[in-house]
C-alpha cells in the first residue's frame, strides 16, 4: 500500500487567524519561544500498490484543483511517503 502526502499552507502574506489563536494559547500555557504559529493542512492519499509517477501526477492535480485554493494557499509538497504503513 503506497501513500502520497500533500502539504498545504496558507500563503505567507495571508492572515492566519487560526494559527494566531493557537500561538496565543501556547503562550498562555507557558510554551513560549515561538515567534509565530501558522496552521496548514496535510492530506494522505493512499493507492493500491506502489506510488507511480502517474499517481503522483493525479495527486498534483488534486492538490491544485481541490485540496488548495491558490488565492490563499500554497501547495508546499506532493510526495510519496517514505515509510510503509497499512491503510486502516
Amino acid at each position: 500500500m503506497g501513500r502520497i502526502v500533500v502539504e498545504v499552507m496558507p500563503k505567507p502574506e495571508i492572515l492566519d487567524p487560526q494559527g494566531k489563536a493557537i500561538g496565543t494559547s501556547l503562550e498562555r500555557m507557558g510554551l513560549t519561544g515561538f515567534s509565530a504559529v501558522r496552521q496548514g493542512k496535510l492530506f494522505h492519499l493512499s493507492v493500491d500498490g506502489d506510488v507511480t509517477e502517474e499517481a503522483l501526477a493525479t495527486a498534483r492535480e488534486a492538490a491544485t484543483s481541490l485540496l488548495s485554493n491558490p488565492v490563499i494557499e500554497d501547495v508546499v509538497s506532493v510526495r510519496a511517503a517514505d515509510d510503509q504503513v497499512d491503510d486502516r
Partner: protein
Amino acid sequence: MSARVAMDTATPLVGGTGETGTIPGAQELTIGVVQFPGSLDERDAMRAVTLSGAQAVALWHGSESLFGVDAVILPGGFSYGDYLRCGAIARFAPLMTAVVDAAKGGMPVLGICNGFQVLCESHLLPGALIRNDHQKFVCRDQDLVIENAETAWTRDFAAGQTITIPLKNGEGGFVADTPTLDRLEGEGRVIARYHELNPNGSQRDIAGITNEAGNVVGLMPHPEHAVEAGFGTDSALGMRAGVDGQPFFTSVLTSLLQK
C-alpha cells in the same frame, strides 16, 4: 378560544408585501435556490423570492439541470459542513457545472455568505473568504453602503445608499492580492462596503463584489433575512421592521424583465 387559520406559506405572516410583489410580469419569472447538504438559508431565500413577486424553485445540488430557471441564488449556510474550505466541495457539486455555464452566459447569480464562498471557489468571482480576523463568529445587524447600483442584483438601490441587513459569519474576511483589489475598485466591481464597522477584517471593507458583466454578485451579509416586516432588522420603524434586503430580490426581476 382559538381559531385555526389555514396559512399558505407563500403569504406574509406579518404585514403586507408592501412595495414588493407588484412588478408587472414578475410572476412569470422563476428564481432557483440551490440546496447543498448543509445549506441553511434556502427557505428564507425562497421566501424572499416569493415576496418579491417571482416564483421560487428549489434546486438540488446533485441535479445536473437548472430546469429553465431565469436566475439562481446560492444560499447561506455550511455546505458540506465547511469541510476542507468553505464552499470548496460544493463548488464541485453536479449542479454547479450548469450554474457556472449559465453564469458565464449572463444568467444572474447571487451568492449569499456561503454562496459567496462557493462563487469564489468556482472562480466566478475573484478573491477568497477567510476566517474573521478576530477569530470569532459574528452575528449583527450590519450597515452597508451600496457602491454599485448597476448590477443585476443591485439596480433597485441608489449608489451611495446606506442599508442595514443581518450579517452572520465565521469566515467572512474577503481577501485578494493588491492588483486584484485595485482592479475591483477601479472597475467599480465592489458592490457594497461595510459602513463604520468592519465586522470580519475584509480587505478595504469589502462586503460584496460582482463579475465584469455585473450578472454574478457575491455578498457576505444576508439580504434574505430583511425582506419582511416583523422578521427583519431593528429599524427606526420598529423592532425587526427593517426590510432593506428587498431591493436585491426585486433588482433581478427588473433586470430580467428589461432584457
